């Protein structure tokens, strides 16, 4: 018997509005001061009424367009009813049968191209069933002292705008699920619709997992679906799915219980990252009846094609498109293109500015993915506060391209520029030239001194010459080194060529 893993995700994304979705309260994350960002509306006080925050709707549409979804011309609000202390009205304002968007898709690269011999990367298309808007609940805080004190409720978060994204069960491994979430997060941050801060709960995920087991006779049998709730990190999501897959496989081999059979109903579980296992939350045999009905306090929302087009026009290029474009435009490897795009929109913008002005995308990519990355990490800086701005880096790379300095010298200049910045000096292209001059880093264009040095080096290295001529090509390295040492600023490539020519005589 073999099996296929079937995974569908439900993702809650907090939209980055200044105010809540149905009232004017701030959405700032503020766990240390409970219940200060509240008003009669989000407290659910008698008589208070919700009014839609237009900006939340706008960000929702942007999100949905990013997911390739269709935007409904008519959408309405529904009440999802259940009792819970963090839900002050006894219902959540959500969307039921007419979500504002539906039917999209997101392509996720699931295999590195290097792993399959540099061929086209493998891509998984994940269909989006729907994306709808809703309000977040508050947060219950239970007494964990074990002394049975009262639980408390913080409603600062109640009413924060959320988009709930529901995928079709198109993912086939825990790794794919993680990659999908990473791509989704990247897209949402490019679109600036959410900060996707998982520690603050801005992005939360539920995963529906089961297996399609191929029986010896060739028929396929689905195992009971398990919904893993409230996964708040990509790593936990991956771990939880892996755990569930293994557990379901083992359980199926032992019991043979299939979906829908006795004992085969859908279960809801949580994930305990400390123990690396899932635990049962509630049995869904008798599914909760939320008694959805249209919220009479809110009017339906109509969205015209013109409105959708104008929102689309305001959207930035999506990461997947941009990855492909910079790959083509600057002749990058898929790996470099991915590394640049995946670091976020600011890094991609930085890269493109440098690549365009210095005229060498490959060089720009190398610097960004190596020297810059290392420096930012060491200095604990992000691209936006990194002191070497694109025009300065571009000037530096331009000197390399024009063979005015070596890469090694450029690194020295780069380090000095950072030191300059730390001592408060302004950085500029002029400063680069100044450093090149004062440190004698300019490549020696005049070949006379190089030839003199070669002659001199060869005259005292008979053994190395003999080694080289007997086939030890590495011996030339030592000779190059000695020439470089005596002629500061010599281009190693020139030295090598001239040495080879001399030795071949």
């Amino acid at each position: 018997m073999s099996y296929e893993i079937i995974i569908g995700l439900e993702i809650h994304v907090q939209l980055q509005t200044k105010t809540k979705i149905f009232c004017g309260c701030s959405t700032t994350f503020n766990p240390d001061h409970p219940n200060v960002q509240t008003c009669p509306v989000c407290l659910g006080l008698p008589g208070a009424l919700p009014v839609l925050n237009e900006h939340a709707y706008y960000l929702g549409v942007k999100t949905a367009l990013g997911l390739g979804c269709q935007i409904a011309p008519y959408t309405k609000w529904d009440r999802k009813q259940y009792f819970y202390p963090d839900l002050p009205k006894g219902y959540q304002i959500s969307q039921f049968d007419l979500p504002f968007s539906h039917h999209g898709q997101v392509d996720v690269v699931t295999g590195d191209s290097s792993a399959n011999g540099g061929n086209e990367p493998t891509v998984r298309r994940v269909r989006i069933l729907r994306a709808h808007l809703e309000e977040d609940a508050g947060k219950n805080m239970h007494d964990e002292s074990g002394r049975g004190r009262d639980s408390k409720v913080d409603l600062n978060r109640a009413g924060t705008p959320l988009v709930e994204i529901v995928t079709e069960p198109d993912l086939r491994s825990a790794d794919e699920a993680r990659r999908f979430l990473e791509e989704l997060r990247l897209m949402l941050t490019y679109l600036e619709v959410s900060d996707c801060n998982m520690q603050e709960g801005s992005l939360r995920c539920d995963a529906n997992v089961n297996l399609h087991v191929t029986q010896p006779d060739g028929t396929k049998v689905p195992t009971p679906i398990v919904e893993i709730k409230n996964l708040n990190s990509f790593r936990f999501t991956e771990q939880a799915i892996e755990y569930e897959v293994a557990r379901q496989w083992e359980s199926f081999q032992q019991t043979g219980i299939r979906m829908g059979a006795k004992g085969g109903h859908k279960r809801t579980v949580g994930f305990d990252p400390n123990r690396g296992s899932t635990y049962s939350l509630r049995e869904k045999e008798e599914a909760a009846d939320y008694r959805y009905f249209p919220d009479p306090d809110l009017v339906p929302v109509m969205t015209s094609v013109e409105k959708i087009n104008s929102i689309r026009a305001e959207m930035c290029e999506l990461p997947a498109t941009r990855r492909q474009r910079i790959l083509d435009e600057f002749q990058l490897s898929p790996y470099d293109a991915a590394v640049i795009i995946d670091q976020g929109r600011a890094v991609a913008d930085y890269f493109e500015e440098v690549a365009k002005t210095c005229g060498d995308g490959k060089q720009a990519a190398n610097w960004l993915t190596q020297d810059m990355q290392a420096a930012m990490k060491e200095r604990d800086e992000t691209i936006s506060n990194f002191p070497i701005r694109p025009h300065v880096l571009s000037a530096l790379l331009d000197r390399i391209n024009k063979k005015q300095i070596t890469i090694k010298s450029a690194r020295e200049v780069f380090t000095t520029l950072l030191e300059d910045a730390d001592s408060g000096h302004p950085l500029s292209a002029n400063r680069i030239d100044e450093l090149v001059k004062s440190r004698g880093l300019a490549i020696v264009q005049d070949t006379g001194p190089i030839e003199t040095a070669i002659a001199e080096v060869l005259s005292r290295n008979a053994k190395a010459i003999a080694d080289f001529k007997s086939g030890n090509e590495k011996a030339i390295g030592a000779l190059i080194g000695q020439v470089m040492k005596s002629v500061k600023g010599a281009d190693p490539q020139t030295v090598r060529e001239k040495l080879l020519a001399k030795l071949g005589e």
Partner: protein
Amino acid sequence: MRDISLTTLTFAELLGRLNSQEVTSVEVTTRCLEIIRRNDPSIHAFLNVDADDAIKQAEAVDRKRAAGEPVGLLAGVPVAIKDVLCTKGQPTTCGSRMLKNYVPPYDAHAITKLRQADAILIGKTNMDEFAMGSSGENSAYGPTRNPWDLERIPGGSSSGSAAAVAARMSPLSLGSDTGGSIRQPAGLCGIVGMKPTYGRVSRYGLVAYASSLDQIGPFATDVQGAATLLEAISGHDPRDSTSVRQPVPAYSRSFDQPLAGLRIGVPVEHFAEGLDSEIERAVRDAIAVYRSLGAEIKDVHLPHSKYAIATYYLVATSEASSNLARYDGVHYGHRAEEFGNSLVEMYEASRAEGFGDEVKRRIMLGVFSLSAGYADKYYSKALQVRRLIRSDFDAAFEKVDVIAGPVTPTAAFKIGEKTSDPLAMYLSDIYTISANLAGIPGISIPCGFTSSNLPIGLQLLAAPFEEDRLLRAARMYERESDWSAHCAIE
């Protein structure tokens, strides 16, 4: 103190004397407070009266007027408030044990508008719990009695607001009308009561019973009072998405202009079986008055009105079951002192103790109507019928300007008479309920008395946002009659 006989003053006379500073608001307010002190122990129209605060408000308006500053539309006029409207810093109980100690931190939009109009908020009035009822008997704080006969109910759910005006304890009051809760008690108490078009008055701060039906409206002794109070509270409010962006006509100035060529429709279905003969006679006499004034009278049909009560009790209870979910004992309102040790037991005990029987009955009905497997049969079906009821009116208003008929099938019944028979009780709203389902405006004006001296009401209905036409039509009849001058309390 000069004698102010509030029992004989029309609204025009009262406002005229205040404006000319012939009387002060303090004098008017004091007189109202005296009547309340004297008569309310037997009527029980009020749940809360803060006399000192009322006098303070009156003093402030008097100072403003004396200083020659511009004053609002209702400057110095006392207005009693149904206890379903939130008043900042003052208890708002909704007639329920659930909200016995609840004090809202904000004013309802209508209250803000009244303050801006310089009205005097004289007190909060009794009501059926959460506006669910037709008799006032469902108040957790005891029933209100009809000023015309203390053994009888004043109607509901705005029982206290209607009784307060009928007993001249306040010249004006605000109520809310979800299925007839203003028009029905106005009819049974012999005063003017109006339900505006859905969306005309902001519901912000009106504690919800059935959100798609609830509407705030005025009670007054005469049409001018109702017109003026309606003008003061109407208008768009950005805090209520269902409040409409439409200019507010100056009802207080136009109400007195008769309508030429008025076409009045008589709904055949509202004169069918179950209508008391004395009421039918009084209403037909009133229609005859319109004919004598040159109006054209014709029959109209509202074929789906027979489904109105059933439709209403599905739509209203479905919404109510959701609107009242917030009273769970967690954040505010009543929490049981004794309950087991689980959250669910806390909910159950708090709600069991906090809500009265009728509220529980409607919540259960609503929960059932919205439940999986039943919603298509009940809630969704009711919405379909609701649209048909609206189409009936749309068709009728193609042919006529105003529909005229009885407010209630019978005059005020005895306290306790229908409490054990909810269905009989529900039938007392049979003529008023359709207007809420259709969202149209309606007014109840006095049109006579039964042989046992109980008031009879005439209901006029008009197309959406035709309040102006409705008030003018009402005034045409009022001018020809003297029912408004009759007073329950000497």
